């Protein structure tokens, strides 16, 4: 009798902690949904052509997907995966970031050197902000006052004031910047450079680079080390960097900016997402067509889960 009760308790407790994990498959034209607790695939759903950037509203009611070849952002019900509506995005949307309040959405348009600002409630374009050539990475400060855009060809991180929608600062970084991520209190901004092979740690108050993180992995040729996705734990203590075809995720001490470890994940690791409790970090591996699950506390890869063709982006539903 006792074992049954234990099992019964586990069953009733578990679902409360499970979050849906959404993975955009660039080549598969679909989204794979996983359960963050069982780490099993719940289902795969078509979403349009060439889905890349993916994010979710703070209340978990709307899932946003950049469908790059459809030149639009599609919005889905995260529970049913039914399309709710679309948002205008400008051509070839690749990455975007949602204001911490859930509105608006800032979209990088790679082809026409603009950041498009879209109201998620009225579905209207609020503004188009001219930036550098080939805008790509998008980040937002924790207080929502600053949006960062990185431009791949101009090699800059642009600081955009979210009130005036004007650029008030530019920082030159290494070649082909791909991603921008603030730490928890907004005291550091991490910008990855894919070809430069570095992370620029920027002090947002002065817009100066305070440190450059370089990577060296025994047995890996330097040209394979291509930093893309960056995620910072909510206490700022640990920074994770996806190193592309090096197939590794670097674990960095958020206080000292020192690299502590390189975790072998899947092939061409691109983007990452934490579960809300930060127990797990999911990585998308575009060439091995899987997602690696990292136990954050232990800094160990605990599982790989097969998803669709060329997984690109990932987001986890909030609690």
């Amino acid at each position, binding site marked *: 009798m006792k074992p049954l009760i234990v099992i019964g308790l586990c069953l009733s407790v578990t679902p409360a902690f499970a979050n849906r994990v959404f993975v955009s498959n660039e080549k598969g034209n679909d989204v794979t949904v996983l359960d963050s607790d069982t780490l099993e695939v719940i289902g795969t759903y078509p979403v349009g052509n060439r889905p890349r950037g993916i994010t979710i509203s703070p209340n978990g009611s709307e899932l946003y997907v950049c469908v790059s070849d459809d030149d639009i952002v599609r919005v889905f019900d995260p529970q049913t995966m039914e399309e709710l509506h679309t948002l205008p995005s400008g051509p070839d949307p690749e990455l975007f970031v949602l204001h911490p309040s859930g509105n608006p959405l800032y979209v990088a348009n790679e082809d026409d050197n603009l950041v498009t600002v879209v109201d998620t409630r009225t579905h209207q374009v609020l503004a188009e902000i001219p930036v550098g050539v080939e805008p790509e990475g998008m980040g937002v400060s924790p207080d929502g006052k600053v949006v960062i855009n990185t431009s791949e060809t101009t090699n800059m991180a642009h600081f955009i004031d979210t009130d005036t929608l004007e650029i008030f600062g530019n920082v030159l970084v290494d070649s082909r910047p791909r991603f921008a991520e603030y730490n928890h209190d907004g005291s550091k901004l991490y910008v990855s450079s894919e*070809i430069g092979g570095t992370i620029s740690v920027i002090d947002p108050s002065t817009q100066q680079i305070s440190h450059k993180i370089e990577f060296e992995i025994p*047995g890996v040729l330097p*040209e394979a080390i291509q930093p893309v996705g960056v995620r910072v734990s909510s206490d700022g203590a640990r920074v994770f960097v996806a190193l592309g075809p090096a197939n590794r995720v670097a674990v960095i001490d958020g206080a000292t900016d020192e690299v502590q470890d390189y975790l*072998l994940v899947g092939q061409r690791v691109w983007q990452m997402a934490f579960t809300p409790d930060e127990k797990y970090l999911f990585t998308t591996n575009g060439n091995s067509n899987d997602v690696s699950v990292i136990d954050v506390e232990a800094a160990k890869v605990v599982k790989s889960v097969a998803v669709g063709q060329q997984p690109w982006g990932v987001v986890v539903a909030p609690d």
Partner: protein
Amino acid sequence: MRTALVICVALFAGQAMAADGTDPDWPCIQRKQPHLSLGQMWSGPIPDDRINQLAQDDLIGNLADRLEQRRMPIETAESEIASFADTSDNDGLTALMVAVLERIEPDRTALIRGIARYGRKQVQLARKIEERREAMARLEAAASPDFDAIDAEEEALDWDQRVFVERQKSLTYVCETPVILEQRAFALARAIASHLE
């Protein structure tokens, strides 16, 4: 037709020249990676001279020869690796990984060189198409146009353009071939590493 052709050649020539902006000989969207390295797929022991020597062992070499062949399904490869692991240790498994990479890496390097040649040929062809177009313009602008010569030039131009476009369409697949070898190497590495103690 003329305008369409010009746009088409300009577009494709640009693409053929340097899609990633770093190597004029590299036509692919994917950034060029001339070589694979062990650490991209292996977090086990780092091989020393002794392991590299062991990788030349006949038993290990023969197994690596079989595993490398993509016609062997990965499930079969996994079970062959499991049988090998039963009678081997970490040194043997690391040596097997070295032997596998020693076989896949030269094949991949040859492919990368082939793709660079393909890209260069496309650039040359784009240039030739541009020259033919200019030649046609000159012929057409002549006071008394030589219509036979114009027809001949137009036919040659159409042909070159057709070859160019066909090759450009294949480029996506051509560029993906190194990835197929990388996937094989990575899948074998995962299978071998799963037996490390």
